């Protein structure tokens, strides 16, 4: 396919606007400006697959079909969208009776899909095909001294393991190092944040996220760098409750990796959605401003 088209999904248009606000300028800066997929529909996430997997794959097929008409591959920043679209893509091309039925329904409704689209995560794109070196060269504001816990969560690296290791991936660590930051050893990097559990059974969600924050603190991180809206949301919004419940001062900024990269590339911080952080970022700015300029 010829270039990429951007699939936002529901989160990047609501609670994770700062992900969109940072990923788009970063891609522009490295020479891959992104257009939004026209009239995209929600991927269905884990919910639709729990109710009806045929319908779930079909609605993903509609998105794939729109991208195919443009001859573009999809870039999906939300790890949930990334996995759901990728999984459906694989299923639709698997040749099963059920897949054939869905493909025929897609055709009947004017969104035929022939299997020509690849689904990629922006981290994958930024760390392959020589782009890591390009980012390193373009770094005008190296984030030296900034200790980063790189958190991958679950669905970016599992169950498909074709882009990084499912247990101890390193692509985000390499990207953070490329912009001058210092990735810390973070053994919880692919431990699940619980996804929507924070909204359904808060107590459990609280504990899962506390484990992740505590480990980042213990490793001396100044900030957690995330690649998924649900992880970012869970890790950030529950901090006050965690501090109260576990009597442990685990407060820490949780930023999108694209915000951190954007900063290093010299994009003004006002244009990277930092104002949407619920956690006070002033201690972080102090630390970053101490870092040098190239």
């Amino acid at each position, binding site marked *: 396919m010829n270039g990429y088209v951007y699939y936002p999904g529901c989160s990047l248009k609501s609670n994770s606007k700062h992900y969109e606000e940072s990923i788009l300028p970063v891609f522009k800066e490295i020479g891959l400006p992104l257009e939004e997929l026209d009239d995209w529909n929600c991927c269905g996430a884990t919910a639709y697959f*729990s109710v009806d997997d045929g319908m779930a794959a079909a609605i993903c097929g509609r998105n794939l079909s729109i991208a195919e008409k443009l001859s573009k591959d999809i870039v999906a920043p939300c790890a949930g969208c990334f996995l759901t679209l990728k999984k459906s893509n694989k299923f639709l091309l698997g040749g099963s009776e059920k897949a054939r039925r869905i493909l025929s329904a897609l055709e009947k409704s004017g969104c035929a899909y022939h299997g020509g689209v690849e689904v990629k995560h922006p981290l994958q794109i930024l760390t392959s095909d020589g782009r890591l070196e390009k980012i390193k060269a373009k770094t005008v504001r190296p984030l030296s001294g900034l200790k980063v816990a790189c958190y991958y969560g679950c669905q970016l690296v599992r169950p498909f393991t074709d882009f990084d290791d499912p247990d101890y991936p390193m692509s985000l660590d390499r990207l953070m190092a490329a912009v001058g930051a210092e990735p810390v050893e973070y053994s919880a990097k692919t431990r699940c944040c619980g996804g929507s559990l924070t909204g359904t059974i808060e107590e459990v969600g609280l504990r899962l996220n506390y484990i992740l924050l505590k480990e980042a603190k213990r490793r001396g991180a100044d900030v957690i760098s995330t690649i998924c809206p649900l992880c970012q949301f869970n890790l950030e919004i529950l901090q006050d409750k965690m501090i109260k419940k576990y009597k442990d001062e685990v407060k820490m900024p949780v930023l999108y990796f694209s915000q951190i990269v954007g900063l290093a590339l010299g994009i003004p911080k006002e244009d990277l959605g930092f104002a949407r952080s619920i956690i006070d970022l002033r201690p972080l700015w102090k630390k970053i401003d101490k870092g040098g300029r190239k």
Partner: protein
Amino acid sequence: MEIVRKVKYEEELDTAFVDLIKTMSGDNEIDHCIQCGTCSSSCPMSVYMDFPPRKIIAMVKNGFKEEALRSFTIWLCPSCYTCQVRCPAKIKITDVMYALKRVAIQEGVYPARFSIPVLDREMSRLIASNGRNSELRLILRLYLKSKKPLALLKMAPLGLKLMKTGRMSLKKERIKNKKQLRTLLDALKEGA
């Protein structure tokens, strides 16, 4: 003390259940489970589960249909796929959990008013009719249908923070071509 028998005799088991789950999940390896427990020890949720994943797999394999479908385990699975990538027998454990959720919803045997299946159903409904999820609507439906309206009030401070940072959309999200989505889902229903 009442004597309770948890193990079943052969004639009480649903021996066709494992085949149904194989078809629905796309897993073909479940028969090869060696009960090593790698799944249970890898699972971030197993401490909260009534049956850890290892037991669920054994239950499916051996026809304990009711017990598997009524368990909290299947809903607590956040589909992080850790068990699935680590399973030495290459069983698609997460996909088996998904299949169990679907059967439980079809047969209406999930725990009453339990918030997780409610969320799954409400989100799917929103997407099927509008093509997009609207977060605020989803949250409202979740709390009303799982009969926890009071808990909603406790969410207010968080809601305010999100609103202040422009991270909560109040509008009803929808796609332009809703007709196409309708045709697609109808065509699929007909073909089924």
